[in-house]
């Protein structure tokens, strides 16, 4: 097995150079870096689409794009952000950090690691290429509901195969992560000593393996419905379009936790560091994460309250949805309790983490509102839903990713980033993300539907505010790119420890860590995590 080969010859720190180093890389750090860079690029591609959406919504009426193109912007924006930006960023962090957090020389399956990365650019070439096809890019929404999605033009099979490839890539990544954590921990690194980031990723990986194949099945059924005469979702042939929604959301709700659990892990690393206290309630954090993951398979129909479920179904899914708020509440409580009486400092990672705790919780509350069946009949398919999922995804997942980038950049590059600029980036992001998304709550409550390029005039003011916030947020992210590049090129030398309050194996290595991380297994003791 290649891991063994690695372990044998990694004394001489040799590595391939040039393009080959990246194309054929089996090194967890190089692959992690590629994932992270890729996800940043996708973040900007998806972001440009969001700019087009907000430009069109700046005023009522149709100004810039035709409705069909608007719809494909909404559709592809979501697909790019979910599958191209947030998920690969999580996998990139896992690649970089998990081996050095558990004291392993590399990932368990380095060759598969290389493949799972290189599938991604290929899949997105398929997806983004559809913009140049007859009939345009997919425009039926990222949720791909039939029968609408079956009206997609030449792009249809490309959409389906892109989803297939992305699924395969993330399942391979997930298998790799579980195999690594289960089989390559350093002596003394017991399961209940694992850093929380590792724990949340193991659980995320199980979610991926359990849910992505179901999505693959659903889109395959769409494909055969369109081209091979099956009628899974075709009423004329005895099928039922609502069935698709059940299958899709059986995947879809676990998917939203795939996006957020690694973020929970990141925050659980950062807050103790800057509060200089061990994480409050470590074991309860692990159990809360696991229960969230299990529950996430029993709440899917809260996305479908309005399709005509029987009353008992509506009630079951309402109560199950409310139940998820309990372990989520445990987590938020533990984060706050960790800070309680801590010696806190407010470097940029901590600022993003604090903003995460507050803003993610706001998103959780709007989620609770949506989970109440009778009121969801009003909120469903309005901007209230858009506000909800952007609070949990942008000020939630993306803020956590930003926090992690600042937290680990010194470890990755060996240089400190520019703290002053980073703080400016934080404040711009935090302020304008709220200007962007908070008014959308009001728009939704007032009845503005989502996925529509035009709206009636009473929604004009809040939309203009939201668009201005959007442009400002978008532009501020360029600052992030500048800060990252500046940090890669140079800056104050970072020590191995980097942050005074940081604990864990990764901080015992130099910054940047050697090409092959732990050539000899470190001994892990309880003292490693003590303050």
């Amino acid at each position: 097995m290649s891991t063994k080969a690695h372990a044998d010859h990694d004394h001489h720190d040799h590595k391939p150079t040039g393009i080959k180093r990246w194309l054929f890389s089996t090194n967890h750090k190089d692959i992690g870096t590629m994932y992270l860079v890729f996800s940043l690029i996708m973040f900007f591609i998806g972001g440009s689409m969001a700019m087009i959406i907000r430009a069109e919504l700046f005023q009522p009426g149709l100004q810039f794009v035709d409705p069909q193109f608007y719809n494909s912007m909404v559709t592809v924006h979501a697909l790019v952000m979910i599958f191209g930006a947030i998920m690969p960023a999580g996998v990139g962090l896992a690649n970089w950090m998990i081996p050095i957090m558990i004291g392993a020389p590399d990932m368990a399956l380095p060759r598969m690691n290389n493949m799972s990365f290189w599938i991604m650019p290929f899949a997105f070439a398929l997806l983004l290429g559809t913009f140049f096809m007859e009939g345009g890019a997919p425009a039926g929404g990222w949720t791909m509901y039939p029968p609408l999605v079956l009206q997609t033009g030449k792009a249809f099979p490309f959409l389906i195969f892109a989803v297939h490839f992305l699924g395969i890539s993330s399942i391979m990544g997930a298998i790799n992560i579980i195999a690594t954590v289960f089989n390559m921990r350093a002596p003394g690194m017991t399961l209940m000593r694992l850093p929380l980031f590792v724990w949340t990723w193991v659980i995320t990986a199980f979610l991926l393996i359990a849910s992505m194949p179901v999505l693959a099945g659903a889109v395959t059924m769409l494909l055969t419905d369109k081209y091979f005469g099956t009628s899974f979702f075709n009423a004329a042939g005895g099928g039922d379009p609502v069935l698709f929604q059940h299958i899709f959301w059986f995947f879809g709700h676990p998917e939203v936790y795939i996006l957020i659990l690694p973020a929970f892990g990141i925050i659980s690393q950062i807050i103790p560091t800057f509060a200089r206290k061990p994480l409050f309630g470590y074991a309860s954090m692990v159990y809360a994460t696991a229960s969230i993951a299990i529950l996430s398979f029993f709440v899917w129909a809260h996305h479908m309250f309005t399709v005509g479920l029987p009353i008992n179904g509506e009630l079951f899914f309402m109560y199950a949805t409310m139940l998820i708020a309990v372990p989520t509440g445990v987590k938020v409580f533990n984060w706050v309790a960790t800070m309680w009486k801590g010696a806190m400092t407010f470097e940029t990672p901590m600022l993003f983490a604090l903003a995460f705790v507050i803003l993610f919780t706001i998103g959780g509350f709007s989620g609770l509102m949506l989970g109440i069946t009778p009121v969801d009949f009003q909120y469903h398919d309005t901007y209230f839903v858009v506000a909800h999922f952007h609070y949990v995804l942008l000020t939630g997942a993306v803020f956590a990713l930003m926090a992690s980038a600042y937290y680990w950049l010194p470890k990755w590059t060996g240089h400190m980033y520019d703290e002053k600029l980073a703080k400016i980036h934080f404040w711009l992001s935090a302020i304008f993300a709220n200007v962007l998304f908070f008014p959308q709550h009001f728009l939704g409550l007032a009845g503005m539907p989502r996925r529509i390029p035009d709206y009636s005039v009473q929604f004009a003011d809040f939309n203009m505010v939201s668009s201005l916030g959007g442009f400002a947020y978008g532009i501020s992210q360029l600052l992030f790119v500048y800060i990252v590049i500046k940090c890669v090129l140079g800056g104050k030398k970072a020590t191995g420890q980097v942050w005074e309050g940081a604990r864990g194996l990764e901080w015992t290595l130099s910054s940047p860590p050697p090409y092959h991380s732990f050539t000899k297994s470190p001994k892990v003791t309880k003292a490693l995590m003590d303050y």
Partner: protein
Amino acid sequence: MIKIGGIKRTTVLLTLLTVVMFGFGYALVPLYDVFCEVTGLNGKTARIYGKEASKLVVDKERFVTIQFDSNINGNLAWKLKADQKFLKANPGKFYVATYTVENMINEEIVGQAIPSVTPQIASLYLKKAECFCFKSQVLKPGEKKKLTVRFEIDKDIPKDVESLTLSYTFFRALKDKKRVS
């Protein structure tokens, strides 16, 4: 501490789990159908066969109003009309309702009617002995045709269901050769 054998085993097990979950996605289809059949969700109507039909007892005390509705799916150039707006039915007795369908264009078309009943719970108790929806219908260019459905309302239909709607939607049949997807 690298457990090479462990890595192999974990990988194989997880790959297996992936395959199982892919299968589970497909298993949801029959599960859903069974679930709908048992609960009457989906509004798919029930059937009644000879043996059961001969044992029916008519409940003269009770009337259930049945309203008839008709729809044509997007890409089918037909016209469908119920010949009666509604019908008052005693549970346990057979009734015949008719529809008129007409092909509006100069082309032979195969259509398939899909029934649906609301409230959904009532679909379990509307039992058909004969229906034009049991097989597809072929209409010659411009042809007009009477369609019949023979059914009874089961005597166990919940007391609070005083009226129900039987709706048909005609789709262009899947086996119609010139069907545009």
